[in-house]
């Protein structure tokens, strides 16, 4: 495999919340253009890890922890880099609760992705040049909700709100998308649509995507590589297709049931998520 540049580099990341260890000595390397699933039950440290990558959390002070994204330092030894804002502009985050501003129009929420490029005197009065509005409109068209551009974000359904959040990431021109449980609050149809959008963005725009999931099925369908966490430690890092039900059971024990979508039983042939994989034309392309 030819060497593609490293995009995310995590070294010896340690994080405690009080006495509770959230991440223990986590090291991770993600290369450009990868689509990686971050798998684990609730409380396994997926969100915490993602939040360290965008500098929304900082690691334990005095620990040897170090996070670099796009070749630039995010934090080292629990200290955020002073240039973290410039880096966040290129690293979009998508949240489980969408984190849109309810009372603002969808368009303004999406234009927020352009804030770092615009001078402050202009953005504080919510003024954006036409080219940015055009760009936001194109991003909304790409995810298929351009008709809702002038509605308040609160009037959209969950799936539409998450697509608006993806548009915001597109307007950012992000080179990396960190998606923190993007489908955990969505119905199955919206979940599939959001995941396909992320996969499209990954394939067509070459954006590196790191997506945390707690359902194995979606990892099988959309992500060639999986990193699995348990109690703050990485317990598996490799091709998703090599994760069979047996392996998952040894990794997660009694927590295994939580990892499967409600209603979507793991297939008996030992290949978890085989049903969903059969439904997704995209996964066939990726598996090939």
């Amino acid at each position, binding site marked *: 495999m030819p060497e593609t540049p490293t995009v995310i580099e995590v070294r010896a990341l340690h994080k405690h919340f009080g006495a509770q260890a959230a991440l223990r000595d986590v090291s991770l390397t993600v290369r450009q253009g990868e689509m990686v699933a971050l798998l684990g039950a609730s409380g396994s440290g997926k969100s915490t890890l993602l939040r360290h990558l965008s500098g929304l959390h900082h690691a334990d002070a005095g620990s040897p922890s170090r996070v670099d994204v796009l070749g630039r330092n995010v934090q080292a030894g629990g200290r955020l880099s002073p240039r973290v804002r410039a880096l966040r502009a290129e690293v979009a985050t998508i949240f489980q609760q969408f984190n849109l501003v*309810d009372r*603002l129009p969808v368009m303004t929420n999406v234009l927020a992705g352009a804030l770092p490029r615009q001078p402050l005197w202009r953005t504080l009065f919510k003024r954006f040049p036409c080219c940015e509005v055009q760009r936001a409109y194109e991003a909304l068209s790409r995810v298929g909700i351009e008709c809702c551009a002038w509605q308040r974000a609160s009037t959209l359904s969950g799936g539409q709100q998450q697509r608006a959040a993806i548009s915001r990431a597109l307007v950012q021109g992000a080179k990396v998308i960190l998606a923190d449980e993007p489908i955990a609050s969505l119905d199955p149809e919206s979940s599939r649509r959001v995941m396909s959008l992320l996969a499209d963005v990954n394939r067509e725009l070459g954006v590196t995507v790191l997506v945390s999931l707690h359902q194995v099925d979606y990892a099988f369908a959309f992500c060639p590589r999986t990193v699995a966490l348990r109690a703050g430690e990485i317990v598996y890092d490799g091709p998703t297709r090599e994760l069979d039900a047996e392996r998952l059971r040894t990794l997660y024990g009694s927590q295994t049931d939580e990892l499967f979508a409600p209603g979507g039983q793991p297939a008996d042939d030992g290949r978890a998520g085989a049903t969903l994989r059969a439904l997704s034309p995209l996964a066939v392309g990726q598996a090939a």
Partner: protein
Amino acid sequence: MTVQTLTTAGLPPAPRRTPLSTLAIWGVLLALLAGSWTGADMRPLDLLRDAGNMAAYANGFFPPDFHDWRYYLAEMVVTLQIALWGTALAVVCSVPLALLAAGNITPWWVHQPVRRVLDACRSINEMVFALLFVVAVGLGPFAGVLALWVHTTGVLAKLFSEAVETIDPQPVEGIRATGAHPLEEIVYGVIPQVTPLWISYALYRFESNVRSASVVGMVGAGGIGMVLWDVIRSFEYSQTAAVLLMLVVSVSCIDLCSAWLRKRLV
């Protein structure tokens, strides 16, 4: 086994306040009231004894004398104008002060001092401020505007900052994650969340300021309060009744209008 016992079997017993502690609370309250009796110079029997005098006094108010109604109306409008400017200046000052006083926006060494300054503005009554400003800028409505401005800033900035402290942090984080400037986080993430409450508080304070503006006039800060003070001092009770009636009607109108506006805007 009955359904009743089934549903309550696993339920921990509800915490019960002892009758003794309830009694103690009542006891303290009654003791306080009794202790304050002489200090407050309570003479309820005087109300009965001097009922005749009071009836005669009240009789002086009728019929109200609307002879000078044009003058009263003009001064009433001045009172509204004082309230309007006092509130507007206070709102403008309260926005930055509220953000500085919000515990979820600024560190403690910023919000604690700002809160103490706001406490000082709030703890001194408009009337006292008006007395001070009359000396500083002379008799007239401007002193009233300044008095309302300072006091209302203290009140509104506190209410505004409490609204800021109850916002949902997630949308703000969404804006932060795009690499936005902290000021942009406030304009895009915080302000939209608090706007309805802020509008509601500002309108409510405008209503109270119309009432306060009529009082600050009494110490020489212009408006209907000054007229009221003049007619009371010259024992013109029928004119006093007319002024009071106009005051009641205009304050009620303002209350109704702002309630309607609040419903529309929020």
